[in-house]
């Protein structure tokens, strides 16, 4: 479990907070999604949590251990996949993983098996400089998983991946949660967050604007509408009904030649827009 309490960060020390009063709990065995557009402060929070940025104000606890007191050995329990792939381009994919595996004093996965899981087995002995951005992204993810850490930080893990590889990666992330890892997933991909996350937090302008399970957010902020398509005079026509007042909907179904009925559940992206007034992909 990771507990973040009232974290602030000011890059310039002039009282302009890049993130302010950030608090949440990411549970073990669960995937916590941090959603927000570029510049919202997602990476700042992740960097504070991993110690890449100093903790100026507030607290971050890994179970009961404050991030202020972590020692080098603690990083045997952490895996981080960066949004910008950062690998040794002069080394092969296999050499990259083997090198990082050797740094850990805990059992690590077989680099070749891991490369196989992210679809890089055939390119294992190619230099990373010859990899595409998506391949480097997968190599970075594989590196984050090699020590089977208790705490995983995944920054845009499916960015630049084709749909088939994206499915592979999603499955891999779910497996990590099943084995009990605490996963902190940073993304602006609402579809990814919706399909993977147990809890999501909406971050905008450095503050958390809403936080709950995806379903609860949909119930809270979405509308209970349905769209009914009927045939009238040889043409298809759509009508909309609020399910909180079902009488009109029932009567319409009886009186018309209904072709299709669609639920109008709000997407996380729409909810984000409603809560923050900002587009996720900005």
């Amino acid at each position, binding site marked *: 479990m990771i507990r973040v309490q009232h974290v602030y960060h000011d890059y310039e020390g002039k009282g302009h907070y890049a993130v302010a009063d950030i608090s949440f709990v990411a549970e073990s065995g669960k995937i916590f999604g941090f959603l927000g557009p570029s510049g919202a402060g997602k990476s700042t929070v992740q960097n504070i949590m991993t110690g890449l940025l*100093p903790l100026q104000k507030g607290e971050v606890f890994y179970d009961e251990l404050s991030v202020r007191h*972590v020692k080098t050995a603690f990083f045997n329990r952490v895996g981080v996949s*960066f949004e910008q792939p950062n690998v040794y381009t002069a080394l092969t994919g296999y050499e990259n993983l083997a090198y990082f595996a050797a740094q850990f004093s805990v059992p690590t996965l077989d680099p070749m098996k891991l490369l196989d899981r992210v679809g890089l087995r055939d390119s294992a002995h190619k230099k990373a400089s010859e990899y595409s951005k998506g391949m480097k992204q997968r190599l970075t993810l594989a590196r984050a998983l090699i020590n089977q850490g208790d705490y995983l930080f995944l920054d845009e893990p499916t960015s630049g991946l084709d749909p088939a590889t994206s499915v592979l990666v999603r499955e891999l992330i779910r497996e990590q949660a099943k084995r009990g890892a605490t996963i902190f997933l940073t993304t602006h991909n609402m579809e990814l967050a919706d399909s993977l996350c147990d809890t999501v937090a909406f971050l905008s302008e450095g503050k958390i604007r809403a936080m709950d399970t995806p379903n609860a957010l949909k119930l809270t902020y979405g509308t209970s509408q349905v769209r009914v398509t009927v045939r009238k005079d040889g043409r298809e026509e759509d009508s909309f009904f609020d399910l909180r007042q079902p009488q009109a909907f029932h009567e319409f179904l009886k009186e018309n030649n209904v072709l299709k009925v669609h639920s109008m559940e709000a997407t996380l992206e729409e909810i984000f827009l409603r809560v923050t007034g900002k587009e996720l992909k900005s």
Partner: protein
Amino acid sequence: MKAIGALVLQDLKRLLKNALFWVVSVTLVLIVLLVQFVFPKSVSMDAPLLVSFQAPSYSTMTRVVDSEAALRKVVAEEQAIGFLGDAEGNLAILHHGLSEKTIASVLLTLQHQQAPVRSEVLQPQEPIPFNLHWLPVLISFEALVLGFILSGTLMLSEKQEGTVRAMRISPLSEGRYIIAKMILFVFIGSSYAGLMALFTVGPWINWVAFLLVSALGSALFALIGLAVTTPFRDMNSWFFSTALLLSVNMLSALGYSNPSIQPWWMRMLPSYPFLMSYDDILFGSGWPQGVWLTIGLWMLVAIPVALLAVRRVFFAKGGVWA
């Protein structure tokens, strides 16, 4: 040990794919070829021509000319030393920038022509062949400085590729990082220095002393290279700053070629004790004299400075980095 071994191996692989490493390797071969086949083993050191006008005390030992103009012409054209006297018996020496010490020596020699001065060398030794005279300088500024340049190059590429961020969230400590780089450059620097000595001076030297000095020198310059490189983000700014530092470091070569010019600050340069050590090992007593204190002091300073620099920029954990 597993982690350090992996670091050394990974750095070696990266070096083998680095163009600068191969440039340095080719330079090593060129130096050996130059010393062995291009530089002469000896050069003729003819005594300078001595000429005089109106200096009867020196007339028997010098070529006498018939005017001051002729004297000045010979001095100018033949790199000679001129003795110019006047009617009052004053004497002026015309020359091309000799030191006061040399002029005094010449005068002393001429004044004692009738009874030659006896000279005694306190530490008699075989004259150093001309082609090998600069070998200590070449080893010090090629083999040992490799650690400085290549450790900086490796660190900068880690910064530019962003792998330094991945290292910062791994269990790798700054100590392991530095030890791995030191091991690599002690191996490479000592190998290069050893090859240069083997293919020029030959196998009959004190290898224990030679390898000890080479290992310490390579380690020291690798430490300085790491400490100096930490604030830089790109190759351009790093290159100019390090070129300046290396130029200052090379000033000790002046003291080596001219032992009368060795001010205290020159003897404190990191290259100085290694330069003098190689001179002792290759051409002197075979064991370095009077350099261990300077080497020890430099190591005492370089180790904590490199650790602090690498820790602050690379490996601070838990929000305590600079």
